């Protein structure tokens, strides 16, 4: 267990580090793979200190060969290891898509249950002020609709730790989406052992008038929007989806059943996004309760420009969310 005061908030990246540390200590079949995860500590410092503690056998640094080292993780998982792979920037996961899509997600089914593929692909998605088109995208929606994999995108330090521990213990392949902006945010994290369920949304704030559905770094922005409406007497519910596949249909339906209004917020492109899937679930489950059309807020259908001054026009902003909330209230 971590040696720290439970009252001191820790960074999101440290919470990831603690989850990896605890699972490495708990289970000898857990092995970390990826680029620069050793003495460098990972491109975002997430694995810092683990190489010194667990050595090269448990932390296998790889050449820059995403498709094959993810495939290596698949083969190792079939043979009983629990690999946790780091893809340095989520955009690079395109290089490994074949092994995630055609191997990790299909093997358990197509080999008729003879194998399972207990592996985690951790990767930071999203923009953080100027990384540019190939280092900034939130590609969450690429993985929704690939049967056989689970997709998780936590928004807080406490959630990321409990969810990553569950993902490592899960017998299925999990695409675990972290976020460059969240790494530097702090939150309270219990010091004791805990895991969180991979398939449950978290109601981050209770409200009555409209529900904001969000995940990853859009959740804290939605919470700020909620606060900005409080003075005007508008009560906003914020649901952190957490699990993008499977989506928690029950929580989505229950919330909209009470509020009658919904805005889906995400950093991925609006078109074909997770929000579209949430909107479809609402249409299927909540038609009789709806007071207004379900609205979507996300990145424009444009590559993420490198200049921070341009980037902000592409990404969804708090103002975009505010406008969508007003529109749904004024319908």
């Amino acid at each position: 267990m971590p040696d720290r005061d439970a009252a001191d908030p820790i960074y999101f990246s440290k919470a990831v580090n603690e989850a990896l540390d605890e699972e490495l200590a708990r289970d000898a079949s857990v092995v970390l793979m990826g680029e620069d995860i050793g003495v460098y500590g990972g491109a975002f410092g997430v694995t810092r200190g683990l190489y010194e503690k667990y050595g090269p056998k448990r932390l296998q640094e790889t050449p820059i060969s995403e498709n094959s080292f993810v495939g290596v993780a698949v083969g190792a998982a079939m043979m009983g290891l629990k690999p946790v792979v780091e893809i340095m920037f989520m955009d690079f996961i395109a290089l490994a898509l074949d092994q995630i899509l055609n191997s990790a997600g299909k093997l358990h089914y197509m080999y008729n249950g003879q194998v399972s593929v207990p592996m985690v692909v951790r990767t930071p998605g999203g923009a953080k002020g100027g990384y540019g088109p190939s280092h900034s995208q939130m590609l969450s929606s690429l993985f929704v609709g690939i049967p056989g994999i689970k997709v998780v995108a936590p928004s807080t330090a406490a959630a990321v730790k409990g969810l990553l521990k569950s993902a490592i213990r899960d017998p299925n392949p999990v695409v675990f989406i972290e976020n460059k902006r969240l790494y530097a945010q702090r939150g309270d994290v219990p010091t004791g052992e805990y895991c969180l369920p991979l398939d449950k949304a978290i109601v981050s704030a209770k409200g009555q008038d409209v529900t904001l559905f969000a995940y990853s770094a859009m959740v804290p922005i939605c919470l700020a929007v909620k606060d900005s409406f409080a003075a005007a007497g508008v009560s906003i519910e914020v649901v952190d989806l957490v699990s993008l596949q499977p989506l928690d249909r029950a929580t989505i339906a229950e919330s909209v059943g009470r509020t009658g209004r919904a805005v889906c917020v995400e950093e991925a492109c609006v078109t074909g996004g997770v929000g579209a899937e949430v909107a479809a679930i609402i249409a299927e489950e909540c038609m009789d309760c709806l007071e207004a059309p379900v609205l979507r807020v996300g990145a424009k259908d444009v590559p993420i420009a490198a200049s921070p001054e341009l980037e902000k026009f592409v990404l969804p902003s708090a103002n975009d969310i505010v406008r969508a909330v007003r529109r749904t209230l004024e319908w």
Partner: protein
Amino acid sequence: MLNDSACPTPELTECFRKMLLIRYFEEALSDLFSRNMVGGTSHFCIGQEACAVGVVSAGQPDDVIVSNHRGHGHLLARGLDPMRVMAELLGRKTGYCGGRGGSQHMCAMDLAFLGTNGITGGGIPIATGAAFALKYQERPQIVIAFFGDGASNQGTFHESLNMASLWKLPVLYVCENNLYGMSISVSSSVASGTVAARAPAYNMPASSCDGMDILAVRDHAAPLIEHVRSGAGPALLELHTYRYCGHSKNDARLYRTREEEAEWHSRDCLDQAANLLRERGISQAEIDAIKQAVNVDIERIVDEASQQPYGDQDHALGGVYA
């Protein structure tokens, strides 16, 4: 090549029987296709039987095998129940993967067969990962990874050989070079001319031989397997062979000549093995008896497999997650 000590006559006879089984099995499958009893497509290995049988028989029965899209020979060489392989090809519930996998996605974990694979080059990193696990778990087995010349042009081949060499993983990469990746020839697709020529770039030993000669395959596989099992790292074996049929069932073979095909047919692996057996004193009557027995087996296999049940809707829709 005649090496009695490396392959005693009973073992050679068994290799001959297994090669016959593979050939007759695929000929029966081809017949089922022509009668519309099989869905989709299939990639026959007729002509290449000595590769699968030679390499697998040179390894241990619990060595891990990873195969590719042209995998029926590998499956049968490992000793899977041919009836259940056929049942899988016919989409039946009692097939090795319950009809979910079919030809290109068939595995038998109880026989350390990690699966055929429908993505060209897709199995190479999986084989490398299996070898990573064997080394991590300090187990004595090695991995044998089969793929074709076409797969050696995928990034996964180069990335995987690089990692396996750096990490000294126990894996034997076996390239069955049958001269064509679907229709593109090796001379138009492999800049180094041969696949074995790529091994020095990854600092691993390699050898190549006539893949139509069962004894040559065994003789070349054995020292590389010994090298790999010793912990010295991976190795690459290139087998020069030929698929008599097209790439898959709808291939008119416009990209190669009938003369070239005849030349390879004249060096048929089964004919060569039968000649070897005769040289060692096995009579033609004994050889004919082996053929007859395999034929009878195949008839039973097709008959039994055709009577197996299909899975139901729950079987089709369940089991996505562990």
